């Protein structure tokens, strides 16, 4: 093919012009690549966010059904005493069944109650709420009086939102783990520890609020620090320093023997947030839905998803805008180039060269330029992408945080029963999402896509400019 040779001779002979074209094309393609990179990074980040923020399905008593039952019983027996809403504690056997569903990553059993301090003094707050705390709205405690110390029985502290969000942190010793099941181990708050001069290894005594009000000894295995912000999340409770974490079995023991193998609620962490509803669906088959309910919380996943979708669509717009602008710019350059080379085209035509082969020559010339430009853009696009990417993420994270702080509070806590502990519910904030960074790296797929764009831009610009070749009359060359 003779036009290949001509194209090569031309590109080589006019090095200055070729270098200039390479630079212009590189600049255009660099922006295209930046857009492509941000887009693919957004996809990756969304996947990452799925794993990071996660989503939960919570099994708890069906409050709605219980409330309806209470209403109907109160209307039928209107003269009887004040109607009572009876909430059935969650059976652990149900929870076990659900935890075996696919996509369930981990299970956290929560059982809360209150006890009274015996061997130590509780931290009193200036708000004057004193010991009148109710352990959260609608707590599922025994009907007996409430104590001054909140006990949050869990499977493991690390599985609670307060700890996984880093709102609460273990400062000494360790947290409660699954191995603490059936032990008297406890994790207490730092302020409480320092006020009573307690440390890891010490033993404290509490007094049950239910049943025979027995005295129970607890062994401190860890000390945690509750962040100050978590106070606001549970306005009903007293100072968060008076919350202790134990194994849920310990909390059940405080509540009384009939609470064995039950829980206030069980939270299942779903490995893929997109599967939350299917887990909920499958879980409903396994439980008595008139007594229990499954609720989902994937709010933070949704916010991350939404903001990443924003980044993605922005990146898409960049790609297309730059591609279109680049095509126009290159087309203009090619048009100018063709004008400047009318003479040469005329000679080719006078030799009887086919017009399409002349266009093919110009296309090949541009292709040689673009190939080099793709390589340069591939190297430089990462830099541009990095800059743009970090800019975008800091923006989107800000919007995320505002989004969660306005929606998170009322959303989460509804079905979580009496777990009024600090930050254990409600604020499923995007603490994790903040870490979500756009990981910009140039993959072979990106480069292939970039090459595709380069090819399309070249082809289109030659097509746009080809009018000049198609219309050119060879006679003009002779006469001028």
């Amino acid at each position, binding site marked *: 093919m003779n036009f290949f*040779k001509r194209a090569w001779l031309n590109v080589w*002979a006019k090095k200055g012009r070729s270098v200039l074209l390479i630079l212009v094309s590189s600049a255009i393609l660099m922006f295209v690549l930046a857009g492509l990179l941000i887009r693919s990074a957004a996809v990756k980040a969304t996947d990452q966010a799925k794993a990071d923020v996660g989503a939960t399905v919570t099994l708890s008593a069906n409050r709605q059904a219980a409330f309806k039952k209470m209403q109907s019983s109160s209307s039928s027996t209107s003269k009887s005493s004040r109607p009572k809403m009876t909430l059935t504690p969650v059976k652990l056997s149900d929870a076990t069944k659900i935890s075996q569903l696919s996509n369930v990553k981990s299970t956290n059993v929560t059982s809360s109650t209150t006890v009274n301090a015996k061997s130590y003094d509780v931290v009193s707050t200036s708000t004057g709420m004193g010991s009148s705390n109710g352990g959260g709205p609608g707590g599922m405690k025994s009907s007996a009086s409430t104590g001054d110390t909140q006990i949050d029985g869990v499977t493991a502290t690390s599985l609670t939102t307060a700890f996984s969000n880093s709102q609460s942190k273990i400062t000494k010793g360790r947290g409660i783990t699954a191995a603490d099941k059936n032990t008297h181990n406890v994790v207490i708050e730092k302020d409480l520890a320092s006020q009573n001069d307690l440390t890891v290894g010490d033993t404290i005594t509490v007094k049950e609020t239910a049943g025979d009000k027995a005295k129970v000894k607890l062994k401190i295995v860890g000390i945690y620090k509750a962040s100050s912000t978590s106070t606001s999340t549970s306005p009903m409770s007293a100072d968060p320093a008076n919350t202790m974490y134990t194994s849920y079995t310990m909390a059940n023991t405080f509540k009384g023997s009939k609470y064995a193998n039950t829980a206030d609620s069980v939270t299942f962490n779903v490995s893929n947030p997109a599967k939350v509803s299917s887990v909920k669906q499958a879980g409903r088959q396994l439980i008595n839905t008139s007594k229990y309910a499954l609720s989902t919380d994937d709010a933070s996943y949704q916010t991350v998803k939404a903001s990443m979708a924003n980044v993605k669509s922005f990146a898409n717009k960049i790609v297309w805008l730059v591609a279109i602008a680049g095509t126009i710019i290159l087309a203009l350059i090619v048009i100018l180039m063709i004008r400047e080379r009318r*003479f040469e085209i005329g000679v080719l035509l006078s030799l*009887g060269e086919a017009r399409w082969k002349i266009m093919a020559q110009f296309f090949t010339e541009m292709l040689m330029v673009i190939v080099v430009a793709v390589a340069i853009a591939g190297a430089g696009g990462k830099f541009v992408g990095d800059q743009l990417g970090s800019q975008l993420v800091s923006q989107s994270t800000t919007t995320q945080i505002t989004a969660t702080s306005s929606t998170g509070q009322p959303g989460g806590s509804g079905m979580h029963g009496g777990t009024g502990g600090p930050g254990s519910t409600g604020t499923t904030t995007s603490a994790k999402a903040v870490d979500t960074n756009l990981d910009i790296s140039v993959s072979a797929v990106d480069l292939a896509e970039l090459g595709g764009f380069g090819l399309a831009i070249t082809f289109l610009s030659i097509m746009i400019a080809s009018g000049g070749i198609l219309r050119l*009359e*060879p006679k003009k060359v002779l006469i001028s």
Partner: protein
Amino acid sequence: MLKTEGLGYWYQDKSDPLFQDINLTFEVGQSYAILGHSGTGKTTFLSLIAGLDKPKAGDILLDDRSLKKIGLTTYRRHDVSIVFQAYNLFTYMSPLNNLLTAMAITGAEHAGDKHFALRTLNDLGINEDLATRNVQHLSGGQQQRVAIARTMACDAQLVVADEPTGNLDEDNTKEVIAQFQKIAHDRQKCVIIVTHEPDVAAQCDHQYRLENKQFTQLA
């Protein structure tokens, strides 16, 4: 071999053509000179003969076949070779590559034959050193000789030239005309040259003058 039948051409005004009803015959092995004042339409006539434009009236026949039938692109590729006043070489190539390119496009017998191209150039006084440097680094006379070498390297039977000596000095003019004569006589081609210079025209086998819309043969 080439015949015009009732050939006529005008640009805008049909009632005022540049020339009309032209009946001429050009034969191989002969050289023809076309003289005439500026603006009479010599270049226009040549562009029709070279297949760069279509006649407005009449027809051009190559070996009794109408150019319309042959198709202008095919005609240009195979049957005619053009030498312009402005050399019309590919400026980004060496003389050698200019020849090889033209030979490839026209599908000449010796297409791709580097040695043939170098020999052809050498015949016209372009040695290998000159033949392989950029064509823009050659003098005007040398460039015009490259253009002539190009027509010789291609197989076309018809060679047309528009003021091929317009930019050349006396010595170069003589040399170039001698080459055209060689092409006509030794290679048995038909050469048609448009020129302003009576001296150049005098060296050709036949002379025509374009005047008052008609071609008249000079004695």
